[in-house]
């Protein structure tokens, strides 16, 4: 296929994809995350129960049940997904009450039915069905008959284990000796001095102490952990009601010890619904009616029959029937809901379960509806602990979205401007590529669909820089080829061909980092990782294939035929800086910065956000002017006197904003605080707060975030090292690792010095730095790899110096180009994006610096220990007295760092005349390649270079076939610069039998 046809087909494909993208963009809606449109996010951690372990199956079942619960809430586009090994992330857009959502979605709803009297444990530690002080008699399960929790635990812990199939605190096969995830009874942490239960019930002793804060332990108290054996459970007494039946205390400190022998569970219940007690003698109060499964029906009838018979037997002459009635207990999540009695006169043979049954007593319509809903969805197979919740107001989300879009547009604009100024026609083509990239990317976001979050927008903006970087790397190469003497057409083709490997290497590393982030990070960061990963792939397509096809098609047009149009006019001045010689000063600079950073970490530490430390942060604006003191008073009145109140100047939240930080609060408590603030600072009928948002992070979540960050960083480093070792050689991987470490630690030091908050966004940014820092390093190393065979007589420091001088401009340009959108984020993004951008800015700057001044010198020092390079250095010192910064010719002038610009007159057929068809250097190189010239055995006899400018291509070919090192230099070439490249005159045609053919050094030379 000809180039022209290929370009046409690629452009056709690009156009087709653009059309398809527009169709997708028009047809599909954009899914916005909670941070952009407001809502509630709940993160749960699953814990095993006696009935189920935490595994994929139980988590998926829990997700299904939660989804059905969410559907009942009427939430549009909810997202419920697994996160990590044992977490479930629930995002409920446009839900404003976190407390209600939490109650509805995550309630475990473990429902059990017990035959009451025979199972209540009395003072003697045995079932005491006739001991009314233990059972409550006619008032079964009432709070006045229960024990304080501490006493109940002591009574329960004396009981021997009874292992039954239906035990709720025993996993089959577990023994008392096994720990963790093997449930054998339940554990309680006691304060014997004050007779209080500090914690419990927990499945393991270890869980009792998890995240136990010192302030939870009263001074001078030695806590005691006790186990209640399987077969015995504690249930809380019924809620206390007043005479009118209104609940006055929902959770009294009154407990009963029960034989853990439930006869039915929530799984035996069907079609539960909220209803009213309107039957004969009914109170009209709300209740929950339900039916039983076939198994449930027979068991229920049998049990109620036994209860009725027992009541009949208990009946004493002259004593009212009510005193003899026996009870059935309904226990929901360790609390007694109701203890209905079975009237043996009405149901002597038990209750026919075919007509269903009901749970009544103490319900409001809402609570009855909630219970019905929970029973309808079924009990969750695992326990769910709410470890993080956040609530974002819709206005705040909208503002954040606007800020993100503005930052994106500004970033895009300045990148375009830079490209246009620096690369002219090439820049215009690159801008076209970026626009196409934007269209594709937006279509993909809608098509997949990707939920767009704030970090996702940050990822998107960053990929604009990455996409532009790919173009810069190629364009610099194209310019280099054209400046080197190639025709524009040939320069474009060769530039793309040679730049491609570096682009692929750099993008693969970025993609791998994004993948690791996606696999390991928390949900918030996943959005960023996904956009970064997809953006990297799309940019590879648009920046390499699309722009190449466009340029190729235009290559004969007058717009690009003149090198100046491509910004490839005469190079004014090349870099001649001795990078390796100066490296000691740069090392000292880095060492000093790190030293200061380390001391700052010791002195100031890192300001970890609540993502890591746990706690609740409320951000809200007030409709009227309030002072910190007034807010503190309200907080104290709600029981949070230690809350930290700070003025919060953020235009997204509106004026008069405050940030309130407290220990971790459950959504219900956050709701109470909001109500208190609304009331206190109300302006007429307008509630006191506006744009109220809150984030609560439990200690478990903080640990998960920290652990996943560490694992992600280590995994990234390992994968990156492996990739570099495979693509280059293993010695190149170590300097890369050192440079990455340098970048990460410098960023940490800067964070410590500036006191900026470290959040999950910072971690995502750090991981991005890992990928991005490598981009620059790979560009430099790629050139070093290319120059190694080209300079078979030079010291390694000279090779690196030359490589650096060749790629420094592009390295600076790519870093600058990436910094542009990052600066846009920093200037125009909201608080989250600014956090993100700050870490990226430090990291990208540090990454560019370390690629040049840390990774390359380390590689140089290490490689120069190899005997081959040591010999070269020794020889150069012996012959020249010192190793020049750059490989020099005999006269001391630099060798071929920059081809001499002169009128090309080389022709393989002899001197060309003005009227003759001229060929470019690249074309000449191709002809040499076609002739398959090989190197001679020696280089002697032609010490002087005849034509530096016209020799590049030949030298490249020649050098690739040359030995990296010659141990013995012929004595008869004293004037020959020992470090200089090979010259075209050194080329010997293949039919020169004196020239033994050497094997290609595949390790270094790719082309």
């Amino acid at each position, binding site marked *: 296929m000809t180039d022209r046809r290929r370009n046409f087909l690629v452009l056709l494909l690009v156009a087709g994809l653009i059309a398809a993208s527009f169709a997708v963009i028009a047809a599909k809606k954009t899914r916005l995350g909670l941070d952009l449109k407001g809502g509630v996010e709940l993160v749960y951690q699953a814990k095993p129960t006696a009935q189920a372990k935490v595994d994929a199956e139980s988590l998926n079942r829990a997700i299904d049940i939660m989804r059905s619960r969410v559907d009942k809430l009427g939430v549009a586009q909810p997202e419920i997904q697994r996160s990590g090994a044992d977490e479930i992330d629930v995002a409920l857009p446009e839900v404003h009450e976190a407390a209600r959502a939490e109650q509805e979605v995550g309630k475990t709803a473990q429902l059990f039915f017990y035959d009451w009297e025979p199972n209540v444990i009395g003072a003697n530690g045995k079932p005491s069905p006739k001991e009314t002080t233990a059972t409550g008699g006619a008032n079964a399960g009432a709070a006045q008959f229960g024990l304080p929790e501490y006493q109940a635990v002591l009574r329960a812990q004396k009981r021997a284990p009874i292992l039954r199939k239906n035990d709720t605190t025993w996993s089959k096969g577990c023994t008392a000796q096994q720990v963790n995830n093997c449930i054998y009874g339940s554990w309680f942490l006691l304060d014997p001095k004050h007779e209080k239960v500090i914690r419990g019930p927990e499945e393991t002793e270890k869980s009792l102490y998890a995240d136990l804060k010192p302030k939870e332990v009263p001074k001078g108290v030695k806590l005691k952990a006790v186990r209640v054996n399987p077969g015995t459970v504690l249930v809380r007494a019924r809620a206390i009601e007043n005479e009118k039946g209104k609940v006055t205390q929902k959770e009294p400190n009154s407990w009963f010890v029960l034989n853990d022998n439930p006869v039915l569970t929530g799984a035996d219940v069907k079609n539960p619904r909220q209803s009213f007690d309107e039957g004969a003698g009914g109170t009209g109060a709300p209740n929950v009616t339900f039916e039983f499964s076939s198994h449930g029906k027979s068991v229920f009838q049998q049990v109620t029959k036994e209860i009725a018979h027992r009541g009949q037997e208990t009946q004493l002459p002259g004593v009212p029937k009510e005193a003899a009635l026996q009870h059935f207990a309904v226990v929901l999540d360790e609390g007694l809901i109701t203890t209905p009695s079975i009237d043996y006169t009405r149901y002597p043979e038990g209750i026919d379960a075919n007509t269903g049954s009901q749970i009544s007593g103490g319900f409001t319509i809402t609570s009855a509806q909630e219970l019905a809903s929970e029973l309808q969805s079924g009990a969750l197979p695992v326990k769910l602990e709410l470890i993080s919740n956040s609530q974002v107001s819709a206005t705040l989300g909208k503002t954040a979205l606007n800020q993100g879009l503005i930052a994106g547009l500004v970033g895009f604009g300045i990148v375009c401007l830079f490209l246009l100024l620096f690369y002219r026609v090439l820049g215009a083509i690159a801008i076209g590529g970026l626009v196409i990239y934007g269209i594709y990317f937006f279509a993909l976001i809608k098509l997949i669909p990707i939920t767009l979050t704030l970090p996702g927008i940050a990822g998107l903006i960053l990929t604009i820089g990455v996409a532009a970087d790919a173009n810069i790397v190629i364009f610099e190469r194209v310019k280099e080829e054209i400046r080197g003497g190639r025709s524009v057409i040939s320069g474009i083709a060769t530039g793309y061909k040679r730049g491609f490997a570096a682009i692929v290497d750099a993008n693969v590393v970025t993609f791998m980092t994004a993948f690791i982030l996606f696999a390991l990070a928390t949900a918030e960061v996943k959005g960023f990782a996904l956009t970064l990963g997809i953006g990297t792939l799309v940019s590879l397509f648009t920046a390499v294939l699309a722009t190449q096809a466009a340029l190729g098609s235009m290559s004969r047009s007058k717009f690009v035929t003149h090198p100046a149009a491509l910004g490839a006019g005469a190079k004014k001045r090349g870099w001649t800086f001795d990078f390796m010689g100066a*490296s*000691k000063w740069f*090392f*000292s600079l*880095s*060492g*000093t910065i*790190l*030293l200061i*950073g*380390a*001391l700052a*970490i*010791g*002195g100031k*530490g*890192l300001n*970890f956000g609540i993502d890591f430390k746990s706690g609740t942060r409320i951000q809200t604006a007030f409709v009227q002017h309030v002072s910190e003191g007034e807010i503190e008073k309200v907080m104290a009145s709600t029981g949070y006197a230690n809350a930290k109140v700070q003025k919060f100047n953020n235009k997204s939240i509106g004026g008069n904003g405050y940030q309130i930080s407290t220990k971790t609060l459950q959504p219900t408590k956050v709701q109470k605080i909001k109500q208190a603030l609304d009331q206190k600072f109300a302006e007429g009928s307008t509630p006191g707060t506006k744009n109220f948002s809150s984030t609560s992070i439990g200690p478990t979540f903080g640990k998960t975030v920290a652990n996943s960050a560490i694992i992600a960083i280590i995994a990234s480093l390992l994968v990156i090292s492996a990739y570099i070792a495979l693509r280059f050689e293993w010695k190149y991987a*170590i300097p890369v690792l*050192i440079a990455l*470490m*340098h970048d990460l*630690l410098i960023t*940490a*030091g800067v964070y410590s010095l500036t006191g900026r908050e470290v959040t999950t966004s910072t971690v995502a940014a750090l991981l991005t730095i890992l990928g991005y820092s490598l981009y620059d390093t790979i560009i430099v190393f790629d050139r070093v790899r290319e120059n190694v065979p080209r300079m078979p007589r030079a010291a390694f420091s000279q090779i690196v110096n030359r490589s650096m001088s060749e790629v420094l401009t592009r390295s600076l340009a790519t870093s600058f180009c990436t910094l542009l959108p990052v600066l846009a984020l920093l200037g125009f993004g909201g608080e989250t994006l600014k956090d993100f951008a700050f870490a990226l800015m430090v990291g990208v700057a540090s990454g560019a610096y370390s690629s040049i001044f840390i990774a390359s*010198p*380390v590689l140089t*020092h*290490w490689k*120069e*220990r190899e005997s081959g390079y040591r010999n070269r250095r020794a020889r150069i010192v012996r012959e020249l007295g010192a190793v020049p910064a750059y490989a020099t010719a005999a006269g001391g002038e630099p060798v071929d760092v920059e081809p001499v610009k002169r009128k090309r007159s080389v022709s393989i057929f002899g001197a060309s005349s003005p009227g003759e068809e001229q060929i470019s250097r690249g074309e000449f190189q191709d002809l040499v390649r076609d002739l398959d010239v090989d190197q001679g055995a020696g280089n002697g006899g032609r010490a002087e270079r005849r034509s530096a400018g016209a020799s590049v291509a030949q030298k490249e070919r020649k050098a690739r076939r040359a030995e990296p090192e010659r141990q013995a230099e012929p004595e008869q070439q004293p004037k020959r610069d020992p470090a200089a490249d090979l010259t075209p005159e050194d080329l010997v045609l293949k039919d020169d039998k004196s020239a033994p053919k050497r094997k290609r050094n595949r390790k270094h030379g790719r082309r």
Partner: protein
Amino acid sequence: MGLLAWVMMGLAIWHFTIFLPDRFWGGIVGAFVGSLVGAIVIGLIIYSVKVSALKIPGENETDVAIVLYAIPGALIGMGLVYLEGMRRERANAHVLEEAD
């Protein structure tokens, strides 16, 4: 947090090895390993002796003094690597002399 500070300090000190002749065992990378391992190990030993328990200082325990624990470790680590490098150099020279 203590570990992070020690690694930072070790890395910071390592940067100044560029002024020394490259006689480290394993070169500049050998010095890097020596510095980091030394900083962590000696830092850990000093801190463990201080608190009478083998533990890494957490966020609240880390202060400037604890960060400085890394300095002797980094120097010792690099010193050992340097001495080993010299020993190997001498051994090689000896072998070459014998071969001549």
